[in-house]
C-alpha cells in the first residue's frame, strides 16, 4: 500500500463507517460497528501498519489522515450512542417521582430537656467534670439536714415539699433540689471533687402554665484545696459562654441566701438576645437570671466529714427547662410535659 492507496482507503472507509454508525439500530449493533471501523481489523489499523513502509516525508501526511479518520468515526459513534441511550430510557416509561418522598418517618427526636441536659453535660465534661447522680426519693438527711437545713428551719418553708408515706412523718420526700447529690457525692468520694448532677426535682404544685410538680435542675459541685469565689464566678462565666456560644457573655452576681452555701449569690448572665439593649427575654433589664450559687458552707463539710480548713468548695444550680425557655422563647412550662408530637418533632 502506498500513500495514495492509504488516503483513498481512509476516505472510502470514512463514508462507509458513517453510514454504518447511523444504521446501527441498537447499542449492541453500535458496539459491533465501532469494533469494525475502529478496532484491530479496521482500515485505520491497516494504514498504521503500512506507514512503516512509507518514506519519511510521507509519514506525517498518512498519520494525520489516520487521526482525522479516527476522530470522525469516534464522534459519530458518540452521537449515535447518546441517541440510542435516550431512546432506550424512553422505552422504560416515565421516570420515578422522588418528590413522593420515602416510606415514612425516618427518625424521632430527643426531648428538648434531654438535648439541653446533654449539651450542659458535655460542657462540664470539657471542663474536666464527672456526672453524679442520686435518687429522686430522698431522706430528710440528704435533702435538708446535711444541707444545713434543720427541722423547722425557715428555709424549709421555701420548699413546698412532697412527702412520701415511708419512714417517720416527713422523713422521706421527693427531692426538692439536686443538692442532695452533693451530699451523696461527698459521703462516698474523697476530695478533690468536680461533679455536675443533672436530674429531676419536685415541688408540691399542680401542673399549669407557670408551675409543675416536677422539673429538671443541674447542680455543680467543686471541692478542692484553695478554691475561691473567683473560681466559682469564673467557672460560671466559662460555662455561660459555651452555653450561649457567645464569648461576649458577662455574669452578674447579687447577694442571696441558701442554707448550704456561704457567701451565696443569685447568678445572672448578660442578655445574649439584645446584648443588653433591652428585650422581652430579659424583661428589658439586660440580664437573665439563671440560678443560685455560693461557696459550700463549712457546716455542710462538717456534716460529711470534710475538714473545712483544708478544703474549700463551690456549688451552683439552675433549671434546665428555664434555659430552654429562655433560649427558644417557650412561655409555658407545661409545654415540656404535654409531650405534644408537634413540640417533640420541632426540636
Amino acid at each position, binding site marked *: 500500500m502506498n500513500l495514495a492507496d492509504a488516503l483513498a482507503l481512509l476516505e472510502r472507509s470514512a463514508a462507509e463507517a458513517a453510514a454504518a454508525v447511523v444504521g446501527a439500530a441498537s447499542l449492541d449493533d453500535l458496539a459491533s460497528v465501532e469494533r469494525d471501523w475502529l478496532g484491530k481489523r479496521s482500515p485505520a489499523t491497516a494504514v498504521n501498519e503500512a506507514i512503516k513502509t512509507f518514506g519519511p516525508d510521507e509519514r506525517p501526511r498518512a498519520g494525520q489522515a489516520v487521526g482525522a479518520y479516527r476522530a470522525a468515526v469516534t464522534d459519530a459513534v458518540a452521537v449515535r450512542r447518546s441517541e440510542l441511550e435516550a431512546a432506550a430510557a424512553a422505552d422504560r416509561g416515565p421516570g420515578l417521582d422522588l418528590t*413522593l418522598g*420515602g416510606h*415514612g*418517618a425516618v*427518625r*424521632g*427526636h*430527643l*426531648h428538648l*430537656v*434531654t438535648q439541653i441536659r446533654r449539651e450542659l*453535660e458535655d460542657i462540664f*465534661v470539657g*471542663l*474536666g*467534670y464527672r456526672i453524679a447522680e442520686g435518687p*429522686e*426519693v430522698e*431522706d430528710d438527711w440528704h435533702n435538708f439536714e446535711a444541707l444545713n437545713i434543720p*427541722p*423547722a428551719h*425557715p428555709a424549709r*418553708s421555701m420548699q413546698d415539699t*412532697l*412527702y*412520701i*408515706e*415511708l419512714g417517720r412523718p416527713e422523713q*422521706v420526700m*421527693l427531692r426538692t433540689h439536686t443538692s442532695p447529690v452533693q451530699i451523696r457525692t461527698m459521703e462516698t468520694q474523697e476530695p*478533690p471533687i*468536680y461533679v455536675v448532677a443533672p436530674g*429531676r426535682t*419536685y415541688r408540691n404544685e*399542680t*401542673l399549669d402554665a407557670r408551675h*409543675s*410538680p*416536677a422539673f429538671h435542675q443541674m447542680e455543680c459541685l467543686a471541692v*478542692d484545696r484553695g*478554691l*475561691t*469565689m*473567683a*473560681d466559682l*464566678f*469564673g467557672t460560671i462565666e466559662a460555662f455561660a459562654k459555651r452555653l450561649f456560644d457567645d464569648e461576649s457573655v458577662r455574669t452578674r452576681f*447579687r*447577694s442571696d*441566701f441558701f442554707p448550704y452555701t*456561704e*457567701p*451565696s*449569690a443569685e447568678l445572672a448572665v448578660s442578655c445574649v438576645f439584645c446584648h443588653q439593649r433591652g428585650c422581652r427575654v430579659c424583661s428589658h433589664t439586660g440580664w437573665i437570671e439563671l440560678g443560685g450559687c455560693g461557696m459550700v458552707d*463549712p457546716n455542710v463539710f462538717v456534716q460529711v466529714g470534710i475538714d473545712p480548713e483544708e478544703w*474549700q468548695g463551690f456549688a451552683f444550680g439552675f433549671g434546665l427547662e428555664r434555659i430552654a425557655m429562655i433560649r427558644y422563647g417557650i412561655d409555658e412550662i407545661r409545654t*415540656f410535659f404535654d*409531650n*405534644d*408530637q408537634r413540640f417533640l418533632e420541632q426540636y
Partner: protein
Amino acid sequence: MRAPLSWIRDFTPADAPIDEIVAALNQLGLEVDAVEEPGREVRGVRVARILEVLPHPDADKLQLADVDFGDGQTRVVCGAPNIAAGMVVPFAPSGATLPGGFTLERRKIRGQVSDGMLCSAKELGLGDDHSGILALAPDAVLGDDVRPLLGLDDVVFDLAITPNRPDAMGIVGVARELAAHFRQPFTVPDPVVVTDPGVAITVPVLIEAPDRCPRYLARVAEVTVGPSPEWMRARLLKAGVRSISNVVDVTNYVLLERNQPLHAFDLDRLAGPGIVVRTATAGERMTTLDGVERELEPTDLLICDADRAPQALAGIMGGGDSEVGPTTTRILLESAYFERMGIARTSKRVKLRSESSARFERGTDPDGVAVAADRALELLVAVAAARVAPGSVDEYPAPVVRPTITVRTAKVNAVLGTTLSGAEVREALAPLGIDLAGDGEVFEAVPPSFRPDLDREIDLVEEVARRIGFAAIGRTVPKPEHQVGALSRRQRDRRLVADALVGAGYSEAVTIPLVSPEAVARFSDAPPVVVANPLRSEESVLRSTLLPGLAAVAAHNGARGLADLAVFELGRVFLRPDPDALLPREPECVAGLRTGTVRRTPVEPDRPVDAHDAVDALRSVLDALGTDAVRIEAAPVVGLDPVASARVLADGHPVGVVGVVDPRVVDALGLASPAVAFELDLDALAAAPTRDRQFRSVSPFPPSNVDLAFVVPDTTAAADLVAALSGAVGPLAESVRCFDEFRGESLGPDRRSLAFALRLRAPDRTLTDSEVAEVRERAITAAGALGAVLRG
C-alpha cells in the same frame, strides 16, 4: 417587705438617685422586686372641705357636694356613701390628673355638672381602699397640694428579704445597710417617753417556759382609742398595712420600723392584771383573732392572763377576749423575745403565718425589746393621748450572749479570692454594727444583737463580700488535675439507648412521675409508692412503670388528632423499698409506645402497627447495649393483651415486657388502636451478659444456603426452633432466620408451618455437598426433638 424611701430617710439621708439606691439594695441582697411611685401621676389634687351634702335629684346613689378649696368653691357629684359636711377630703378639680394618666374634665353626671371629683385612697394610688372618700386630717390647710400631705411624692421599694436577714424586715435595718453602702450617717433617735406617775399599776409577769420565751417586757398605759393621724395612716398604707386604730397602728408601725412585733392587750379585759407565759396543755383550745378555734398541743406557747386563760398564741396571733377595741382605755403593751424554732413549729402546725411570726421565727433582737416598747409608748403619747405608767416589768432571766467570732483576714481572702488588707476588712464590717478588736490579721468580732445570722467566721466573710460587692471579685477557672472529664459507662449507655430509639423513629417524651393510682394499676399490680401530701389524686402515687405516662402522652396527642405516634421515655420508676431499706428502689427503665398506622403510602400500602414493631424497637435497644442471650417468652403481662404479650429475659432473668396493649386499656384511655408497647429495665440489663467483642475473622469462602420448612405445634415458639437449629448446626451456622409462617387446613388444627433459611459457612474452606447434607440432617433431627416435622 415594702420600704417607703421617706421612712428610710428618717434614719439616713439616702439621697442618691433612685436607680443607684436600687442597685445598692440588690447588691446587698435586699432584692428589689418592684419600685413603686404611687403618686407619680397625681397632679393638681388639693385639700378641700365639704360644706354641704345634697341629694342628687335624679340618682339615688349619687350625692352633690359643695366644697371649699381655699381660694374658691364649687360643686361635685359624688357616689361615695361616707361624705358629710365638715369632712376634709382630697379634691381633684378639672385639669387634675390621677394614676393612669387620667385627666379630669368638667362634665355632667345624670344631668348635674360635676367640677372634678373627690378621691378615695385607691384613686390616689394609695393601696386598695375604695370603700369611701379618703378623710384627711381636719386641720389640713385648704387648697394645699395633697402630694406632700399624703406622701405621694414618695418611692416605695418592694423588697424580697431572705430568711437569714430578719433585721432587714425593718425600715431601720434597710436604712443601716444603705448608710453603710453610701458611707452616710445613720442615726436612730432614742425614744423619749413621758411617764405619768398618776397611772400606777403593777403587772406581774411569770415566765414558766424561759427557754421558749427568754424575755418578756410589759408596759401599761391609758389611751384614747381613735383614728390615727394622716401621716401615720399614709405611711402604713405605703408599707402595705391598713389602718385599724391608733393603738393597733402604733404596734404595727413599730413592727415595721424596728422589726419588733408588739401586742397590745386591753388590760381591763384580762382576768386580773398579770401575765403568765406557759406552754399549752394537751387538748386545750383557744380562738384566735381570725375567729378560728384552734386545738393546741403541749409544744405551743401561750400568753395568758393572771387566771392562766390564753390571750395570745405567743408571737403568732392574739386571741381570747383581750383584743383592743373602741372601748379600750387601758392597755398592757407586750414586747418580747421568743425562741425561733418554737414559733416556727407552731406557726407551721396551725398553718398561720403573721407579720409577727415571720419575724420571730427568723430571729428578732433580744436587746431591742425595751427600746421598741419605748418607741411605741412615745408614739402612743403622740397619737393616742397616752398616759404611760412609769416603770416596766422586764423579765429577762438569762440575757442572750452575743458570740465572739475570730475573723482572719487571710481566710476572708482565701474564700473570696481577694487581696484585702485588714483595714479594708474592718472598713467593710464596722458600719454594720459589728464590734471589732484586733491587729488587722486577726479580729475578734462581736456582731450586733439584731443579726442572729452572724455567729461564724464564714458569716462575716459573707458580710465582707456583700460590702465590697461581687463585682470586685475576679474570674478564674479551676481545672481538675486528678481526673479527666468523662461520662460513665452507664451514662454513655443511656445516650446509646435513646439514640437507638430515635433512629428507630421514636420521639422521646418526658412525663411527670406522679400519677393516679388507677393509671399505674392499669399496667402494674405492684403496690405503688404513695405521696403523703398530694395536691390531687392525679398526682398521688409514683409510677412503678413508664407505661402510664406514655399512655397519657398518646391520649393527649390522640385528642389533638395525632393518632399515629411513636414515643419512648427513659427514666426512673419507683418500687416499694426492700425490707431493710428506707428509700424506694428506683430502677431506670426505657419504654416505648406506638399507636395507629404505619404510614407507607403512596409507595406501599399503609398497615396498622403491630407487636412486631414493638419487638423491633426493643431489639434496637438491646442491640445498642450489646445485650446477649435474650429470650422473648409468651406470658401474660398486666396491661397487655394476654394473647399478644411476652416477657423479655436476659440470661434467664426478666428484663422487660413487650406486646399489644390490652384493648380494654386502649378503650378506657381513648387511645388510637392498635397500640403496642415495650418496657425494659436498664438496671437489670446492665447486669446481663453482652456480646463477645473479641474479633472473629470473616470467612472469604462462599456460603451454602439451606431452606427447611417444618410443621410445628402452635405451642412451639419460632425462637425455640431457631435456637435448636443453631445449636444443632454449631459453628457452621452463620445465620438462622425464620422467613415464613403459614397456617392452613391441610396442616391440621393448632399447627403451623415455619420455614427457616440457614446460611452455612466454614472459616477455612468451601463446604462440600456431603458436609451440607450431613448438617441438614442434624438440623432436621434437632427440630424433630421439638415436635417439628419436615414438610415434604
